[in-house]
C-alpha cells in the first residue's frame, strides 16, 4: 500500500506503458516520450518495489533474429493493483494508451 501512495505520475505512466505491452526500456521511451535518463531509473525503482519483474530474453531467439538479447519487463500482481489505484488517482492515465483500453474492453 505504501508503494501505491508513493507512485509518481511519471512512474504511473511507465507502469501503465508496461502493462500495455511495451515490455522493454526503449519501447517505453518511445511510447511515453520520456528520456532514457528518466525511464531506466524508474524501471529499476518499479522492479525494486516489486511492481514489475525483469527477464532476459532467450539467447536462441535473439540469435535467430540476429540481435542482442533484450531485458523484458512484465507487470506483477502487486503492480497491477498499484496501477489500478494510480488510475483512480490519475484519471487520465488510462486514456494515454487507448490500445490497452480497447483490449480491456
Amino acid at each position: 500500500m505504501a508503494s501505491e501512495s508513493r507512485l509518481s505520475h511519471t512512474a504511473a505512466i511507465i507502469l501503465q506503458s508496461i502493462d500495455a505491452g511495451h515490455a522493454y526500456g526503449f519501447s517505453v521511451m518511445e511510447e511515453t516520450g520520456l528520456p532514457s535518463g528518466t525511464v531506466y531509473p524508474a524501471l529499476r525503482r518499479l522492479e525494486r518495489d516489486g511492481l514489475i519483474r525483469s527477464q532476459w530474453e532467450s539467447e536462441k531467439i535473439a540469435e535467430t533474429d540476429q540481435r542482442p538479447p533484450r531485458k523484458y519487463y512484465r507487470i506483477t500482481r502487486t503492480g497491477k493493483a498499484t496501477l489500478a489505484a494510480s488510475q483512480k488517482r490519475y484519471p487520465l492515465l488510462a486514456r494515454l494508451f487507448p490500445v490497452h483500453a480497447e483490449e480491456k474492453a
Partner: protein
Amino acid sequence: MLRTLHIAILRNAALLVPAPERGEWLAEWKAELCYVSHDATHFCLGSFRDALWLRRKSFSARRAFSLDSPLRCVLFLALPAASSFLLAFGLPSRELFMPLFSPQGEDQFAFGCFWLCFESLLVLLTLNPLGLGEYPANRYAPALIIRLRRWVFLAIKIALLPLIFMFASIALLPIFPPALWILFFGWIAGFRWALADQKQRCAVCLRLLSNPTRIGSPTQSILGWYGTELVCTRGHGMLYVPGAPTSWCSTQRWQYLDPTRSSLLPQAVTRRGAVPRL
C-alpha cells in the same frame, strides 16, 4: 565511429554502477542501443542518470558505517581521534585550558592520563579475559608476515582509542571538569570493543566474519560440540566459538581453509558478475 563513441559513453557510465551489477547493466544498455535509430548520443547520456541511481541505491547508511574492512575500522577510529584533537587544541576553548600547559601542568596532566590508563587496565583485566582465541597454523596458514598484520591492526586500534578519549576529555575539561573520567570509562569500553572486534575478524584479510550459524544444542554438550560457526566470505577460514567453555574447547578456535573452498562462498560467486540468461 559514432557507434564507438556511444559504447564509450556507456562504458564510462558503467564505472558508476556497483561492480556486481555492472555486467548485466551494460548488457541491457548495449542491447537497447541497437534499437535506437535517432539521437543515440542523448540516449546514451541518460545512462549516467541510471548508473547514478544504482550507485545511490547501493549506498546505504548501514554499509557506509559498516566496519567490515580493516581500513574502514582504522578510519572509524582515526577520524574521531583527529576531530577530538582539533576540538582540544584548535578551538578558542583551548585558551581557557592554557594554564594547564605550563611545564608543571603538562607533567601533572600526562601523569594523570597515564595513571587513569593504568587503572582502567586493571579494571579491564578483572572484567574480562584478554585472550583472543586459538589460531593454530596448518598447511593452509598464510606467511608469517600476513599473520602478523592481525597484531599490527590490533595495536593501531589500541593506540588510537586512548587518544580519542584523551583529546575529548581535554576539549571538554574547560566546560565540564569531571571530563577526565571520560578517559577512564571510555578507555575501558573502547578496549573491550577493540578485543571483541578483533575476535570477530578473519585472521588473513582482517574483514569481519559473517554468516554466524548455531551448531548443536546446549542439552547435548556432553555428546557433541555446540556453539557458533562464523566464516570469512573470502574463504580464508572459519571460526568456532563455543557456546560454553569445556575442557576440550575452552576458547574460540580459528581454522584456516583450503583455498579451493572459496569457490563455495558467496563473495567468490558474486565476483564473477555473470549476466543471467533465461
